[in-house]
Every structure is written in C-alpha cells, then in structure tokens.
C-alpha cells in the first residue's frame, strides 16, 4: 500500500460568493493515476483551481494535505514548490517572456536549477518527444499559440518540472486525435512511482490512453461515486444519468 500524496476531506469552496464545492472527499496515493469525471458545471475545474490556490477561489471548509503538509494556508507558488502542478485548461499568454526564460525561472524557483547545457539538452529531448518545434524555445509563452500548442507546452512544463502530482484540467479538450495521443503518451511517459496524476475530464477518450487506477465522479460539488477503470467505460456507454440517478438516490 503506497502512501497518500493528496488527501482532500470535506472541502468546500466558493467563487464570487457562490458555493461550488460542497464537501469533496478524495485520496490519491503516491504514483497513482486518478480520473475525476463529471458533467459540465459539477465543480471539476473549481476543484483544480482551489487545490492550486487561485485567489478567486475561497475555501470555506474542510482540509487538504499534500505530502503530509497542510496545503490550504499556502500560496500557489509555495504549493508548486511542494510538488503540485496544474496543467491549465486555458493557459495564459505572457508576452515578452520566452519559453526558455520562463522554464528557467520556474526551475530556479523550485530549487531544480541545472547547468545551462544540461537544461538545453533536456529541453531539446522533451520538445522532440512532444513534437514541439525548436522555434518555440524563444517564442513568448503561449502568445499566439494554437489550442493544441498550448496543451503541449503545458506537458513540456510538466516534463521539465517533474512534480509529485499533476492535475490535468481538461487537457484533452480541443485536441484532435493525434495531438491527444502525443499529449497522453507524454503524460504516461512521465507518470510512475514519483509522479501521480489527477485527470479531470468529461470525455472518457483520454482515459483509454492513461489507464487510471481509480475513477471518481463529481456532481454538484461532491464526489458521488468512485470505481475502477470500468466506471469510465460505463459512463462512455450510458452517460452520466444512470450513475447520477442512483448516486443522487443513494445520498437522498
């Protein structure tokens, strides 16, 4: 039995005064792949932002530990330095800041700085794996990138920073079949005993590549059911309604 890396208990959070998370319970063990599914508006992305510490998301109850530490009092940068990573659904452009400078600043901030030559070699290798053109090194981060390029750039950051746990927030949305495979292969290559993954999606498609250990369904701000990979297949066949119907009935 491996150690729990992320432990969420009774987490409640509001956005602009509206309660979105209404008591989330979730455990992720070291090195495991978990999928968090659920229909639009169930609170999936809110959970991602809340875990990463976006100031707009206000925690009103519950607790979260990460690697045994209390996550909630920490700012986003401190959470990242503990080894938490968020793959953004809509990555933000930072004009004037090149990919190389951005990555070096991030590595330095996380105490993972390496000699310039080693850095450039690793960057080169990872970019090839993710089919990112060399020219993106000096391009401004996410500035004028297509949707697919942004997603690959997120995985590139993941590959360079090697966190303990990566949250993928609908990383599959807006990707064509080939791009999805590239991104999923990238994640699979990186995850292992040192890096777990929490995949947020409402399409089971990406899960065929990622083979999750556990699947959770979020509905109306709560995890209403959990299961193995079978649960994702069931959702693909039957949709959310049968599950939510029974789940809602069970909690009623």
């Amino acid at each position, binding site marked *: 039995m491996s150690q729990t890396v992320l432990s969420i208990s009774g987490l409640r959070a509001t956005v602009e005064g509206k309660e979105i998370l209404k008591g989330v319970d979730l455990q992720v063990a070291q090195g495991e792949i978990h999928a968090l599914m659920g229909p639009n508006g169930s609170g999936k992305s809110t959970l991602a932002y809340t875990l*990463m510490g976006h100031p707009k998301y206000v925690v009103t109850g519950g607790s979260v530990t990460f690697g045994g530490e209390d996550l909630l009092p920490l700012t*986003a940068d401190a959470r990242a330095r503990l080894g938490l990573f968020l793959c953004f659904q809509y990555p933000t452009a930072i*004009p004037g800041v090149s990919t190389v400078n951005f990555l070096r600043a991030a590595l330095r901030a996380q105490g993972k700085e390496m000699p310039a030559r080693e850095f450039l070699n690793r960057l080169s290798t990872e970019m090839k794996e993710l089919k990112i053109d060399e020219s993106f090194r000096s391009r401004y981060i996410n500035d004028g990138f297509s949707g697919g390029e942004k997603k690959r750039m997120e995985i590139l950051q993941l590959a360079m920073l090697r966190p303990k746990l990566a949250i993928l927030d609908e990383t599959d949305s807006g990707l064509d079949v080939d791009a999805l495979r590239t991104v999923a292969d990238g994640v699979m290559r990186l995850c292992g005993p040192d890096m777990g993954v929490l995949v947020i999606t409402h399409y089971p498609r990406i899960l065929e590549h990622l083979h999750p250990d556990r699947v959770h369904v979020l509905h109306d701000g709560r995890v209403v059911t959990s299961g193995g990979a079978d649960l994702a297949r069931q959702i693909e066949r039957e949709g959310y309604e049968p599950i939510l119907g029974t789940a809602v009935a069970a909690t009623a």
Partner: protein
Amino acid sequence: MAIQAKELTKDYQFGFSDIDVSVFRTAKGLSPEVVASISQHKSEPEWMLKFRLKALDHFRKRPMPTWGADLSGLDFENIYYYVKPVEEMSRSWDDVPDSIKQTFDRLGIPQAERQFLAGVSAQYDSEVVYHSIREDLEKQGVLFSDCDTGLREHEELFRKYFGTVIPPNDNKFAALNSAVWSGGSFVYVPKGVKVDIPLQAYFRINSDNMGQFERTLIIADEGSSVHYIEGCTAPNYSSDSLHSAVVELVAHKGAKIRYTTIQNWSDNVYNLVTKRAIANENATVEWIDGNLGSKVTMKYPSVYLMGEGAHAEVMSAAFAGNGQHQDAGSKAIHVAPNTTSNIVSRSISKGTGRTSYRGHIKVLPKAHNVKVSVRCDALLLDEESRSDTYPYMDIDNPDVTIGHEASVSKVGEDQIFYLTSRGITEQDATALIVNGFFEPFVKELPMEYAVELNRLLALSMEGAIG
C-alpha cells in the same frame, strides 16, 4: 579610509554619494554674473559668452510651461549651475581621483565594459573627468570628446552646428541649458566612416543641489554611421535637483545615427531634456529612450525629416513608480516627401506613478507619400497607477499613410496565477511580466545594458506587491 570602507559595504540602492571633491563652483542661483563666470572659467571665445547671455535673457522671459508635468517644486534660485570637480581633464585612468573611481566601480565601469567600448566618457558633476578614445577611431578621423573640448579644439566645426538644431529660444529649458551648459559629448563622424562599436558616456549628478546641464552634439557626415549610448545613474539627495540637457543630432545624406539613453536619475530629480535630430536625404535617426528614474521627466525625442527618403525610429520605454511622473513621447516632423517614421512607446505605472505619452506628428504640405506608424502601450500595475495618452497630429498633405494604435492594460490576476502555479513568487512573477512588457525595447539594447535594465526593473518591483 574607515568611512569609505563603511560606505562601500552599504547595499547598493539606486543612489550613493561620494565625498564632494569639487574645486570650483559658482554661487547658487542664476544671474548674468554666474553665466559670465562659467564662460570665463572655461576660457571660452566671446561669441559663446554672448550666446549664453542671450539664452539667459530668453530663459527669463519665457513663462514656465504648464501644459505638461507639474514643475511647481522647481526652485531655480536654489541650484548650483556649475561645479568643476577636478582641475584638469584626465585622459589616463591612472589620473582619475580614487573617490571618483570608486563611484565608477559601483556603476560597473570601466572594468566590465572597457574591453569592448570605443571610448568611455564619464561625466562627474559638470565636467568630463575621464575620456579615452580608441586609436583606430582617431585614425578614422572620428572626433569624440566632451563638448567643452570640442569647442576649444574644433571651434569652426563646432560653431557651424551648435545651437542650429535646437536654438536657445526653442523652449524655456533649452534656453536655460544654452545659458549654463557644461560638459556632454561632442561627436563628429567623417564621410563614409562606419563606427562599428557604440560610443558610450556615463553621466552622474554628484553634488547636492547641483544642476546638470550637459550639451551633446553629434554630427554624422554623408554615408557615415554611429551609435551613441548615454546611461545615467544618480545618487539620492533630499532636496530637489534639476537635470536639463540639450542633445542635437545632425544626420547628413545617407547617414545613420542611433542614440540610446537609459536615465535612472534619483527620484528627486527634475529631468527636463530637449532632444532633437535633423535627418537629411536618405538618412536614418533612431532614438532608443528609456526612462526609469527621476521625479518628473519631460522628454520627447524628435526627428525633423528634412530630406527625401529620411527615416525616423523612436523606441521608448518608461517606468513610473510611487511619486514619479514620466511625461515622455516623441515628435516626427515630416518636411520632405517619401519620409517615414515609426514610433513605439511602452510605459508602466506602479503605485502612485504616472506615465504620459505625448506625441506630435506633423506632415507639411510638400511632404507627399509619407508613412507614419505610432504604437503606444501602457501597463498599469495597480488600482492607483495612471497612464494618459496625448497624441497630436497635424497633417497637411492628403497623400499620407498613418497608423496609430494605443492600448492600456493591467497585469492580470490570471497571468500572476499562471506564473505562481509554477513555483515563481508573486514578486518575481510581476517582474517577469514587467520585463516581458519591455522586451521590445530591451532587445534593442546592447547586452550589458539589457542586463542592467532588467536588474533595475527587478529592484523597482521590490515591494510592488502589498
């Protein structure tokens, strides 16, 4: 010695001050006697004394400009107009007094730069104390000296151009400078000579209540090219200081002049500078102008496009922190046909800082087929900060293409969150965004200036996050 050692161990702030080694200075305030004593001290020819006195007259008659930044804190009677720090002009580094060397050490010159600098002209108070010209420049006939030396040794050439681009009656502060000017650089590049290494000068104010009135005159003869760099840092003082320079550039047929400035005056300095260039046929003039320091800056580098095919390029960046007002911009006056100008301005306001872009584009009736592009972008770092744009256009010829774009944006919460989610602190994230915003400007700078600018910006950002 003990005091100096202690001084040296202090952390570098933006300013530091050395023991005042001035050997001659005029009385505080301004009068014909003060002006005459400056001219006499420099053993100037009669025509220069007359020029100065006439300029003083203009200065006194002109009202204070009220159309721009608030200048009400300026007290002309509480300023020394001339301070001479050492008796003789030094050519060799060995002759430079130790305390002055220590000041230069802190500025990172000359050790870090002299190997690739053509000549270092460091202005200490009103006089240039150190000035070296590489031998091959001399062989090419390039003149590079302080302006006083230019007047003394090349009077005919000097007189032909001095005050022709910016006459003393141009504006109140050009008049003031014309009356009391001292130091600055004089550059002449002969026909066809391309100076391939930037000529650099450092300027410093180093005496309380010391006005600095340097005068720079650069002439690029036909088909020549030169890049001149002026960088400024200044010590902090408690009472107000005034820096009022005049810079005149003349680019003859087919010549190219690039003039790069980064000013970082301490935050009590009024920086009121007139910079203007004449671009003759097929000439190019480029102003690269960065404003980080000072309490108030009013500076609008201008190009008069006098000859067909002339081109003007103005790239400016301004940073206004608490209590600062950067009123900067540019002017392009299209006199001749087929002339082009491209103006790019980037400004950042933080805290109570305020930036203004003030631009003037003028196209005269005979100037056909003129192309103008103006782009100004402002970034606000918080709720209090402010930015204004004042673009003026007088277009008297219908055959003209003009593009004007302006934007004002705020540092986004999402940008900060994105960077902090990668482990970067909020302060460093803001500095990254700020540096990124200035990137189009920074990439025009030589490497060592780019590094210095980024470092200064990072220092300016300290405490930016509440």
